[in-house]
Structure formats: C-alpha cells, structure tokens
C-alpha cells in the first residue's frame, strides 16, 4: 500500500514551510517567517509569469495554513477560484477547501464560484460532482439554496448518479433545506426520497435517513410513508447476524448509527396504526432489549457503546410510543442495571433516560423502586454532571409518598452542591415541597430551611411564592409567623429571611403577639435590628411592615413613628425609602384608625395562575420540566387527593407596598376621593372607565327616573356576556349605582367579590343584595355569603360584599343577584345574573399533538360531540379568537392543527363530584365568513352547552 508521504501530490514546499513554522522559537520569529512567506506568495501571484496549477495549488494551500494559524489573509481568493476550473482533482480539492474555509458568503467572487460549482455538479466524474456538493453543503448560504435548490434533488433521485453522489446529494439537500426551509417544495419528490430507505447501499440509507428525518419534521403529511419503510429496514438490521452486513458491522453490532437514525426518525410520528407494522416495530424493540441480556460478543468498550447507543435510542422510542407497558417496564429494569454499572457514561445516561420514564404512567412506579440507588448517586458520584442527573431524576420521581425523603436529601446535598447547580436545585426543592405538601407546616419549614442553607440562590420568585401560599392558606399563617419569628432570632440571617419575615409578620404578626416572648414590641425590635444591614429594597419592605404594625398594634405606634420620622429615613439618599417613610408617617398621624384599617387590610388571596417558579425552571431547563408536567396532566385526570397548587400566581406581590391602593402618588385628600381611586385600582385591568367623576354625579342622578328600563336590561346582558371571557369588570351600571365584580375560581370552588358604588351624592338606603338560584341550579351549586351584605351606601362611597361558592356538579344557567335600595325615597330594584358560569370551573390543559388526537378519537361517539356552523359575528381574527378561548378557560394548543387558521383547545371542567374533559376545534372559513365549531366532551351535555355559549361570540 502506498504511503502518504511518498505520493506525487505531496507538496514539498508546503511541508518545508510547516516545518519552519514549527521550528520557530518565538511568536515573533513565527510572524517574521509568515510575513516572508506572504510576501513571497504575493509576488508570485502578481508576477508576469503565469503560474502552473501545481504552484498555484501549493501557494493557496500555504495561505490556508497561515489562515488556520490565526492570521488574516486578504489575497489569494481569485487564485483559489481559478483552481476550481482545473481538470485535476487535487487542484480542485485545494481550491474548494480554501473557498469553504475562507470565503464569506457575501464575497463578490460568489457568482464566479457558483458558476464553477454548476460546471462540476454536472460533470460526468463523480469525484468532481462530490467536491461541488460538499462545497455547497459546507458554505450552506441562502444564495447556495437559491442557486442549487432545484439541481441537488435531481441528483438525489437520478437513476444514473453513483451511490457516493447520492449520499452527498442527500445531505447537501438537507443543508439547503435547513438554510431556507420555505423555498423548497417537498411534496413532489417525497415518494422517491422515502424509497431511498430501501436502497441496496447502506451508506445511501444512512445519509437519506437524516434527510428524511428533517423533511418529516417540516412536512409530516408528505413523508408519513417513511414509517413502514423505516420499520422494515430496522427490522432487517436488528435481526441480521453480524456477518450479514459486513462493512456496516461495527464491533459485532450491525449498523449501529443507521439503527439510531431510524429509531429517531420513528419518533417523528405516532405509533403506526397498521397492526402489521406496529407488531413488527414492537418486535424490533423487544429484540433490541433482548440483545442486552445476551453475553457480550466482545469485551471492547466499542462493542458495548454501540450496542447501548441503539438501546438508549430504542428506549427513547418506547417512551415516545408510551402505550406498551411491558416494554416500558423492561426498559426501566434495564436502566436500573446500568445505574450500578462501572462505566460512568452508562450511569449518567441511565439516570437521564429514567427521568423520561418517570413521566410515563406505566413505568413511573418501576422508576421509583430505584430511589435509594439514585440518592446514593447524589452522595457518591465524582462527576458533577452525574450528580446533576441524579437531582433531575429525584425531581421527576418525586410523589406524595416519597417527597419528604427526597426533599430532605436534596436539602442535605444543597449544602455541598456545586455553585453552578444550586439555583436550579433551590427551584426544584421549592416546587416539590409546594406540590406535595400534605401539611403546610412542613412546607413552611422546608422553604425557610432552603433560605437558611442557600439564601443567596433563593431567587425572588421563591420567596414571593412562599408568601403567596401563606396568604392563601389560613391554616399556615400562624405557624408561618411563629417560625419566621424563630428564624429571625438567629444572629446572622440571610436577607431573604428578613424579607419573608418582614412580610409575614406585617400580615400575621398579630397571630403570635399574645405570647410575651413575641409581643408586638419584641417583634418590631427584632425586625428593626436587621434593618441597617439590609439593602434598600428590603428596607423599603420593612417600612411597609412597620406601617402595618401601626395598624395591628396601636400600642407601639409611637415607637414606630419615631423610627419613620428619623432623619435616617426622612432624609435618606434613596428616594423610595424617603417617600415611604414620609407617607407612612403622615398616614399614621393624620388618618383615623378606621381609615388605616381599611388601607392596611390583610392582603386578599392571590389569584391562582401558573407557578412563577415552575416558569422560571422551565426557562432554565426546558427538558427537565417535561417529566413533571406529564405527571401533572395525569394528576389532573384523576381527582387530586390533596389540594395541589400546581397552577399558581405568576404575579408576585408586585410591590409589598400594598398601600398603593390608596393612590399615594396623589396626596390623599378626602375619603371620598380615595374610595374612588380604590375602585379604579381594583379594576386595574378593565377596559372601560369605571369610576365616574364625582362632580357629575348630581346632575345625572336627577335624571335617573328617565332611564329606559329595556335599554338598561340590554346593556346589562351585554355586560354579562363579556364575563364569559373574563373574571372582573363592571356588571351593571345606571345613574345611581355601579356594580363591579371580581371573581376567583380554583378547581370547583370560587369566590365572587361584589363592589357596589354609589354614584350619587346622597346615601342609598335600605340597601340589600341577595343571591338566589333558580330550580335548575338547586343542588348543583352551593352559595354562601361571607358576611351579611351592607344595608346602606354613603354618597360617592363603595362597599364590598363577598360570596363563596362551590360547584357540586355540572350546571347550566347562572345564579341571580337581586339588589334593592331606596334613592330619594323611591324604592329601586335591579335583578342581575351573576357571572358564575360553568366555564369558570374549567382549567386549560396543555398536551402534545399526539395526545390531543388520541383523546379526540376517544371522544368519538355522536353524543359526545356538538358541532355548529355559523356566520361570523365579528371579523375573523385568529389572535382575537385565541384570546377569547383562553379567557373562556381553554388552553389553545399550538402546532396541533396542520392548518394554522384553525384553533384547537382543551380544558377540564372541575366540579366537586367529577372532572369533565373538553376538547374544541374552531375552523374559520374566511371567504364565506363562516365558522365551524366542534366541541367534544366526555359528557355530551357539556359539549352542547359550551358550543352554544361560544357560538355567538365569534
């Protein structure tokens, strides 16, 4: 066999130059030698004598070498392009190499280069065609896509092209598609491309599999035929003996890379429906699992690696299919063996793969059996990335039964965990402890311990979250106050602890004030002892706590006022602190105790939304959240056993300065004005003006009698119908009174806040507000007012009234609200519908396309579906429709319907006795200005009702 160095193509001059460079003792010497060479080459290129191909090749190659050493090259490009038109392979090769490495896509030589590529691509010599194809693929610019998007596919499916050319053409085309996915038409050569999977030449199949994978992602419909071909190809490979495939057997494993590619391709599609194909696929997967139990054919790591490469990809496919319990459990057992393997790589990959298995209902329990091994990995693994995977897996396998142990282990590990992963771990501990808390004392303890152990890594979201939960949970408040108080007594405590402590004591300090050891003054002194060590934002928070203390504990008002009025605060360089100190001190000195109590009333419960911590973790690590989300979907399907706070506020207590309700930006003047701004603030998100100007009240109220009752009723219906899509706003308004509503719903329970605003200057007397239910709601909804409704409303004032409710079972219609009052000695009566509608108890659910279609099919009985075709009442606008559906309570699923104009959504109606899944599809016909709306639900009545409710709003 000829050796490389003795070949005629070896460029001696180049070798000498490289040796010279290597012999240079210093950077300067190297630069000197390079500059000398550059001067030499430049003179050769500029010289009168035309250079022969060999010299040109040699000099271009030297320039390339210099460039690769890190020096700029500003000439020689033209000579490189000249090499392209040489007839000699070696000269062409250097020319193409120089261009691929060095020529930027916007070079003015590009036209010339493309011309040369065009010549080569149609050359009869396969080696020239390949050089050209490789150059196109290596540059891969948009210009290349435009120039060759038509040529390359032809080569790929040509009957005459050699195998090697087809291989290159397939991948070259892939590169062009990645560059300009929209410029290609895929359908026309789909069937011929798919059939490359049947090609005799395994190399062609290997290249084509990657191309088909990408095409399947871009245009799944056109390429779905590849599934059965891929299955049969895979089947032939895995059942072959290692001698069958000869060249493509690698350390006794038949075609490992191609197997991996095929297994990945199959993950682009749902499980094949044809029983024969599906059966064959399951057989393949079983064979792959079986092979792992066989004694190895070689001790070499290459053998086990390539075998396991196929195994891990097969497991990915098994997880993707997620409907073969037997395979899932076998996969899990196999991975369990790897958890204790001596190869670190295998332990790492097994942990990673198990994380996905934990998300499947069939294998979740099998995964949990390995808890101890995984915890052990956390303690003993030397490689941080392995420990990281162990954390991920513990997070994914956590459930109610093991959460206390897992959280405790994670907290213990957190103390010595690598800095890089601490923040993420903190998020995970916070999420798990919240999600699986069966007992809120445990939750509070865990979060406070988290702050103690890793305070610096506790992000805003985490401590905001604990406050939200404590505020929303009456049973946790006393314990939380006691525990933060104890934690604050530590001589050095983290600033985050001060924040949580400050906020919680400000709200609930009164719950522990009975004990002498935590009397109001003790609480205040404890907090204030931390004040000077804190950053301005924390100090601002503490000032808010102090004003709340003045309200809670009037006996220490003087002490606190002294602090507020101290020059350290009043003249603080920080404007925020200055302003708060000043305003709070004024607030506490000039307002009555009643006003203070109203302003500083306990914070209302936070609305439930997606967890801010979960959102943060998702942003940090999209993959690791998938498992837990899958878990959640399952939990939603079955009635949750504990109240789970999966959907939790995104809104953090934006500013602990709750006093902004007062509108501190304008100086507080009369009580009347401040109640008006209160109204505005409560309806901060409402799109119409809410509070009337006090000046105009009188003149309007005089004309009250002339209001046309029918018009008022219509207006009220219109206002009511908007509540289908939102939870707060104005429900009713006439010249005398305005009724605002703010509702919160969680699972099957809800709370309706009613705000009655007197728009006149006089008192409304004999006021009553009662909620009643028609016969159709009896026994289906329970309603209880929190307190008696107020009996009078002062002129210009606003009063609140809260009603709790519970949905026992599915209902249609809404409860009534009857208002009676007397104005100018004339009795008035208004009957309204309360916006308590069945869709309020619906929660959106997200799911991948495959799940959606599965469930859609499952709800295929005629009684489960209602379909309406109707004229559009509003201009057809996809975004607006999306917003409406989301407001309605459905999750709008993206990338599910192949037609982007169509919308699909899903949600679950949660009543006390059942959970009713609902799926929806809305298809606009823009030309005809029509819609087709299809709703499917496990309960036919629900589908019909939702459909009717939605119909008139599109």
């Amino acid at each position, binding site marked *: *066999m000829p050796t*490389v160095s003795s*070949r*005629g*193509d070896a460029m001696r001059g180049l*070798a000498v130059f*490289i040796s010279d460079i*290597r012999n240079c003792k210093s950077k300067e010497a190297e630069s000197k030698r390079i500059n000398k060479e550059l001067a030499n080459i430049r003179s050769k290129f500029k010289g009168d004598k035309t250079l022969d191909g060999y010299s040109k090749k040699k000099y271009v*190659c030297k320039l*390339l*070498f210099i460039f*690769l050493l*890190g020096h700029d090259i500003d000439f020689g490009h033209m000579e490189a392009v000249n090499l392209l038109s040489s007839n*000699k*392979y*070696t000269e062409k*090769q*250097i020319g193409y*190499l120089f261009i691929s490495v060095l020529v930027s896509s916007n070079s003015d030589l590009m036209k010339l280069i493309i011309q040369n590529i065009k010549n080569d691509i149609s050359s009869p010599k396969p*080696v020239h065609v390949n050089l050209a194809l*490789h150059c196109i*693929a*290596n540059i*891969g610019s948009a210009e290349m896509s435009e120039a060759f998007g038509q040529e390359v596919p032809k080569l790929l499916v040509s009957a005459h092209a050699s195998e090697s050319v087809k*291989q*290159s053409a397939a*991948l*070259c085309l*892939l*590169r062009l598609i*990645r560059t300009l996915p929209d410029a290609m038409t895929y359908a026309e050569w789909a069937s011929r491309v798919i059939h490359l999977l049947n090609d005799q030449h*395994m*190399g062609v199949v*290997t*290249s084509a599999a*990657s191309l088909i994978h990408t095409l399947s992602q871009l245009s799944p419909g056109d390429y779905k035929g590849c599934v059965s071909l891929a299955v049969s190809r895979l089947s032939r490979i895995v059942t072959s003996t290692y001698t069958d495939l000869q*060249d*493509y057997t*690698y350390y006794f494993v038949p*075609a*490992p*890379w*191609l197997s*991996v*590619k095929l297994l*990945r391709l199959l993950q682009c599609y749902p499980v094949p429906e044809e029983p024969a194909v599906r059966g064959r696929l399951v057989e393949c997967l079983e064979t792959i699992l079986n092979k792992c139990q066989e004694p190895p054919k070689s001790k070499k790591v*290459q053998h086990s*690696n*390539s075998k*396991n*490469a196929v195994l*891990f*990809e097969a497991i990915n496919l098994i997880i993707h299919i997620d409907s073969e319990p037997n395979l899932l459990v076998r996969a899990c057992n196999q991975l369990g063996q790897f958890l204790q393997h001596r190869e*670190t*790589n295998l332990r*790492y990959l097994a942990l990673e793969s198990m994380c996905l298995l934990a998300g499947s209902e069939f294998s979740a329990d099998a995964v949990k059996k390995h808890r101890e091994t995984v915890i052990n990995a956390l303690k003993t693994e*030397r*490689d941080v*990335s*392995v420990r990281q995977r162990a954390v991920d897996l513990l997070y994914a396998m956590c459930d109610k039964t093991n959460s206390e142990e897992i959280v405790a282990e994670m907290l213990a590990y957190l103390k010595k965990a690598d800095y890089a992963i601490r923040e993420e771990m903190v998020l995970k501990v916070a999420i798990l402890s919240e999600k699986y808390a069966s007992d809120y004392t445990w939750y509070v303890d865990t979060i406070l311990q988290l702050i103690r152990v890793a305070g610096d890594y506790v992000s805003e979201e985490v401590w905001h979250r604990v406050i939200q939960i404590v505020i929303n949970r009456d049973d946790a408040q006393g314990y939380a106050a006691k525990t933060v108080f104890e934690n604050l007594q530590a001589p050095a405590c983290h600033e985050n602890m001060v924040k949580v402590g400050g906020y919680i004591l400000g709200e609930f300090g009164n719950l522990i004030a009975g004990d002498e050891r935590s009397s109001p003054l003790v609480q205040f002194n404890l907090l204030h002892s931390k004040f000077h060590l804190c950053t301005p934002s924390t100090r601002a928070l503490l000032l808010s706590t102090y004003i709340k203390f003045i309200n809670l504990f009037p006996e220490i008002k003087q002490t606190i006022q002294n602090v507020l009025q101290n020059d350290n605060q009043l003249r603080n360089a920080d404007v925020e602190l200055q302003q708060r100190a000043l305003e709070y001190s004024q607030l506490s000195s000039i307002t009555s105790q009643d006003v203070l109590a109203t302003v500083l009333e306990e914070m209302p419960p936070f609305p439930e939304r997606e967890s801010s911590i979960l959102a943060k973790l998702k942003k940090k690590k999209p993959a690791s959240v998938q498992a837990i989300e899958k878990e959640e979907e399952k939990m939603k399907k079955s009635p949750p056993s504990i109240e789970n706070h999966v959907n939790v506020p995104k809104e953090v207590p934006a500013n602990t300065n709750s006093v902004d309700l007062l509108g501190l930006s304008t100086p507080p003047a009369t009580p009347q004005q401040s109640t008006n701004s209160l109204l505005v603030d409560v309806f901060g998100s409402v799109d119409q003006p809410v509070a009337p100007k006090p000046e105009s009240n009188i003149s309007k109220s005089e004309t009250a009698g002339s209001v046309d009752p029918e018009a008022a009723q219509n207006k009220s219906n219109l206002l009511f119908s908007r509540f289908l899509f939102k939870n707060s706003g104005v429900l009713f308004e006439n010249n005398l009174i305005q009724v605002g509503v703010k509702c919160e719903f969680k699972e099957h329970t809800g709370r309706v806040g009613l705000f009655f605003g007197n728009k006149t200057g006089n008192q409304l007397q004999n006021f009553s507000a009662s909620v009643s239910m028609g016969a159709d709601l009896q026994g289906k909804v329970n309603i209880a007012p929190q307190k008696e409704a107020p009996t009078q409303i002062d002129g210009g004032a606003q009063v609140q009234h809260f009603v709790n409710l519970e949905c026992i079972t599915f209902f249609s219609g809404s409860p009534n609200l009857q208002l009676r009052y007397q104005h100018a000695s004339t009795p008035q009566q208004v009957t309204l519908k309360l916006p308590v509608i069945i869709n309020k108890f619906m929660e959106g659910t997200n799911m991948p396309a495959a799940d959606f279609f599965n469930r859609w099919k499952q709800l295929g009985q005629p009684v489960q579906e209602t379909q309406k075709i109707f004229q559009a009442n509003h201009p057809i606008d996809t975004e607006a429709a999306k917003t409406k559906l989301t407001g309605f309570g459905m999750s709008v699923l993206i990338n599910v319907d192949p037609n982007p104009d169509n919308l699909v959504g899903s949600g679950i109606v949660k009543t006390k006795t059942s959970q009713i899944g609902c799926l929806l599809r809305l298809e606009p016909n823009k030309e005809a200005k029509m819609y087709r709306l299809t709703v499917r639900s496990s309960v036919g009545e629900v589908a019909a009702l939702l459909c009717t409710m939605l119909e008139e709003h599109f």
Partner: protein
Amino acid sequence: MIRFILIQNRAGKTRLAKWYMQFDDDEKQKLIEEVHAVVTVRDAKHTNFVEFRNFKIVYRRYAGLYFCICVDVSDNNLACLEAIHNFVEVLNEYFHNVCELDLVFNFYKVYTVVDEMFLAGEIRETSQTKVIQQLLMLQNLE
C-alpha cells in the same frame, strides 16, 4: 445534528476545526477556548459528555489529542462517541498509525476524510472499508 468538530491538543492548539453552522471568526475563537477549558479539566472517571451552552460536547481523548464534537442536546451520546472512534480508526488506517504531526502536515487531507464521513452536520458514511477505499481512490488521482 453536529454543530462543530474540534481536534485540540492538551495545550489548546487546534488541529482541526470543522463548523456546521455559521459563526463569525471571533465567536469561533471563543468556542475553541471554551471547549478546551471544559474538556481538559475532566478526568478519566468523568463521563465523555459535557453540557455546553445550549448544546453538549461529546469528546474522547487519544494520547495528547481531544476529539470533540458539539451536538444537540437530544442527540444520542453513545452514537456520537463511537462516531468519533470510528473516525479515529479511519485516520489511523489512512495515515498508518496516525499521530498529531500527521494531522499538522496533512491538514488539507484531514478535511477530505471528514467530508467523507460527516456532511452537513450528519453522519454520511460509517463503513471504514468504504471510506478507506474512497480515500485511496482519491489519493491516486492527480
């Protein structure tokens, strides 16, 4: 998909850099340095995989040389790892017991070997016999 392939020695000198996505020159230099920093601190007990920005590096050390490929997070680690080894075995046969110097003096040939085995960030050919045959055929061309 493979985002780039790097061959570096312990000192951080690059012996091959092959890019499958667009980076400007400064970015390339930064990537080269970052990869060197993450890979060289790891020992034999560590895995052959490292998280790297939004991707991962699969690498293997051969004597003083690190062969690193940067791939998508969802790519198959072991398949990538063995693709490296397959590539090294081809280099070894082509250059008859390959050593670092072969890669220096024949840098322009190494690119050809790479293009035979990997193209557009995907595995093109895995059969060592086929690749070597093709390389020798090209070798004999003028």
